[in-house]
């Protein structure tokens, strides 16, 4: 399964980023092979609409799930309409790698 995680740096060992729309990087990860790719988030510097822009990016990557610290109403609306599952980091989540492991173990809460 392909998922996206918001991250502070462009690396699998990067600390996670609690913010979605203005996260510096999005890491797309294949949970089976652990193959990954980092994408700089073009929405970070926008005055407004960063959440929707970031959601559009995630939607265009055709992933099945996205993990972040929180999702704003606009971003959540777009992701929900695209039937992309949203999950939240828990207190044990420090790095992108950990987020993927916790996700695989089904330990992350669904964003409702």
């Amino acid at each position, binding site marked *: 399964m392909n998922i996206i995680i918001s991250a502070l740096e462009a690396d699998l060992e990067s600390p996670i980023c609690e913010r979605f729309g203005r996260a510096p990087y999005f890491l797309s990860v294949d949970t089976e092979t652990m193959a990954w790719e980092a994408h700089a988030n073009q929405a970070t510097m926008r005055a407004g609409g960063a959440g929707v822009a970031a959601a559009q990016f995630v939607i265009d990557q055709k992933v099945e799930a996205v993990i972040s610290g929180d999702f704003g109403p606009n971003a959540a*609306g*777009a992701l929900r309409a695209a*039937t992309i599952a949203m999950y939240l980091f828990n207190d044990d989540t420090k790095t992108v790698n950990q987020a993927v492991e916790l996700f695989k173990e089904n330990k992350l809460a669904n964003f409702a």
Partner: protein
Amino acid sequence: MKIAIASGKGGTGKTTIATSLAHSLAGSIKVWYLDCDVEAPNGHLFLNPIFTEQVDAVIRIPQIQPESCTLCGKCVEVCQFHALAKVAKKILVFNQLCHGCGSCTWNCPEGAIVEIPNPIGVLEAGLTKHGIHFLQGVLTISEPMPTPIIRQLKKWKTPPAQALTLLDAPPGASCSVVETLRGADFALLVTEPTPFGLHDLKQMLGIVDDMHIPCGVVINRDGIGNDQVDKFLAEKQIPVLLRVPFSKELAEGIAAGQTLVDILPDYRQKLQHLFEEIIHLVKVSYAK
């Protein structure tokens, strides 16, 4: 002539200066007062206009016709404000992010977008007892975007050529302030001698410099804080056009809805003099 009164920092006295200036000049020239602080317009509390006209401020937001839409995504691509998103089988519109610019409608190759009016507030106009033409925009609570309503307020009516238009800007140093300043002949920057006042004054100076608008400064609550604002202005050779001391008498009068002219009649002359200096500075700047 158009003079915008701005400050960056909130609560420095923009409205105090703008309404007092309007009051001091109303007997001698035609004054139009535009309250562009549409999220919290309060100039009316000091000038007491009787509003006789009201119109809706409307932006036109897109509605996608699903039977004509081919999901090409052109509208999403051209939207500078990310008010549109293309999800699985439809285009989503986020009304509160839409600026009503119409780019999506213009660029849709299928003609699949119709625009529907979305009221975001009202424009009001009336006269004060001193004969000031008073106009204000009022953004509806929970609407996030002040800029379109400011733009509409400025276009709503055309003052006579010889009239002086005073534009009371919103606080901050973002789009709504830039929209207020656009087309102004002069920016009157109100500050206070504190680190906060100085910080935001520098931001405002950056904006007016960028927009090539000549400016001068009013130091309000003079006597508090420190001398950093004065040092900075002296260094940059920016004129201080008026100082209003920090005083309980003024504070009490303002809290009771009085202009400086109401509280201390001396201010009529001081503010008229300020206006003359502004005219001079505008002439000098156009001569350059």
